[in-house]
């Protein structure tokens, strides 16, 4: 099966300023993919390269198996894009804008379009310039979904949406996936997309640090544990346990971080009198930061290898 997105050593410099460097990214078709990174990490640069709005300094990119520059129009017929800083023609009403964009696209499922307008509770009679950010975003989302594209590229799509509409948006993404379409969502916040995505890639300072499935990340769930014992315990009793790190023993209290199963730690603790156990499960975001948070791409990869 052809990958929905495939980049090879994709690199972009703006003059001497860094855009992205050597990004090798593959997004399989039929997935919801989260593209994560802090602001300025290169998410929008990557997306605008995929759309041929800017041209790479080196490397190449393919979308739906086609070259992003040479096969531009063929790609545009099957791909929708909602930019992060969404700007639409302010003088048009929502309805006029959808008509215009639909005509440019050539084919629109009118019935589906009306259903989308209803589901996202969009008032199409208002001019774009009078809409709030969230409502503008809704126009963009209707425009993107109404053509039933094979690939949706959404740059920070949930900014400004109220929670109810956000749920509706998520079910739209899931429906698209169920129909075998691919959704590529960029975000600077993992919690916003972690329950939605099958896989996530993280980009930092222009480099793709890792691509992981959400399931694999969850297997590596980190817990911070504090165990209070009835008496002082020797550190040596807990040294070298599988999956235990950041171990400190302070008199009667043990503190550590555990990755994966708690089994070996619990068994080691059982030989002493245990008074209390406090456990905090960390978010996926913290997991990501634990592995890749050094900010240095090469170190991030080593950490990923060590963890695998």
């Amino acid at each position, binding site marked *: 099966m052809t990958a929905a997105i495939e980049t090879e050593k994709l690199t972009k410099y703006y003059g001497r300023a860094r855009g992205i460097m050597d990004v090798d990214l593959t997004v399989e078709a039929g997935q919801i993919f989260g593209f994560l990174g802090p602001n300025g990490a290169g998410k929008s640069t990557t997306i605008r390269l995929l*759309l041929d*709005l800017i041209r790479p300094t080196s490397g190449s990119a393919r979308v739906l198996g086609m070259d992003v520059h040479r096969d531009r*129009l063929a790609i*545009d017929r099957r791909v929708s894009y909602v930019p992060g800083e969404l700007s639409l023609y302010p*003088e048009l009403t929502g309805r006029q804008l959808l008509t215009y*964009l639909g005509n440019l*696209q050539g084919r629109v499922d009118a019935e589906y379009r009306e259903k989308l307008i209803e589901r996202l509770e969009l008032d199409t009679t208002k001019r774009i310039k009078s809409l709030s950010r969230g409502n503008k975003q809704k126009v963009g989302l209707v425009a993107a979904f109404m053509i039933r594209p094979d690939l949706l590229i959404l740059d920070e799509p949930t900014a400004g949406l109220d929670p109810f509409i956000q749920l509706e948006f998520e079910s739209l993404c899931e429906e698209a996936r169920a129909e075998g379409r691919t959704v590529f969502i960029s975000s600077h916040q993992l919690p916003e997309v972690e329950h939605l995505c099958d896989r996530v890639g993280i980009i930092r300072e222009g480099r793709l640090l890792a691509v992981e499935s959400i399931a694999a990340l969850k297997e590596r769930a980190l817990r911070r544990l504090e165990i209070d014992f009835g008496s002082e315990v020797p550190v040596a009793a807990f040294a070298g346990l599988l999956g235990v790190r950041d171990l400190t023993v302070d008199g009667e209290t043990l503190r550590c971080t555990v990755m994966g199963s708690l089994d070996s730690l619990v068994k080691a603790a059982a030989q002493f009198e245990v008074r209390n156990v406090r456990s905090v499960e960390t978010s996926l975001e913290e997991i990501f930061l634990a592995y890749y948070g050094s900010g240095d791409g090469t170190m991030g990869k080593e950490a990923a290898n060590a963890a695998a």
Partner: protein
Amino acid sequence: MLLRSVFGKTIRDLRWPTLWVGLGMGAMTGYFALLFPTYSKLFDLNSMLEKMGPVAKLLGPGADASTLVGFLHIELFSMILPALIVAFAAGMASGFTAGEESRGTIDVLLSYPVSRRRVVLEKAAAVVIGCVIAATAVWVMALAGAAASSSPLPPDRLAEALVMLVLLGLAFGAIALAISAATGNRAAAIGVAIALMVVMYLIDALAAIVDGLRSIQPLSLFRYYMGNDPLRNGLSLTDAAVLAAVTAVFLMAALVAFDRRDLAA
């Protein structure tokens, strides 16, 4: 209905500017045509021209205030109408790609199956339509004014002069379009186009009294617009071809430059 294509959308965007420029230029021309007999009775316009001496030459070879044709030439076709049509065409053309870029709408537009070249071409075509509509308004209102004041004004010559006017506007429009497509900077595009127009106007006008300028007169597009005095003599195909060629060259430059460039985020 106009929201079917980039061309239609651009026509829609240009509808009010086109209406105002067309009505403005038309009303001015019609007004002069209507009042010409009164003017020529009240003032001996030709003796005023003689008193101006060599400066009258600045008004070009067609400066003869005893006929409506000569009067329109002096009052409107030598400076005001060209300035207006150039400002209109260059103003519109400079706003197309640069305007969509600075507003950020270009990202959405180009994510639809419309090539960059087609965007430029369809927008350029809309300016041609806008200029033709504005010129047609001038033609209708000028002839109406002339008929009302029973002054002779040959409709075919007027049409030919207006064709030259449109070609002049399009040439400067194409220059503005090329700069805007290459740089994404609307202010630079319109500024350069207007500055060029002023310089070219001065070269062409002053060449009549300053010998040193005569060698560079062919560099001025006004030379081709005015050279044959189209309102009196009809248009020269050569002059029209020069203006059309300049337009084509800059349009090509705009297409190539816009196609190659990184677009602003």
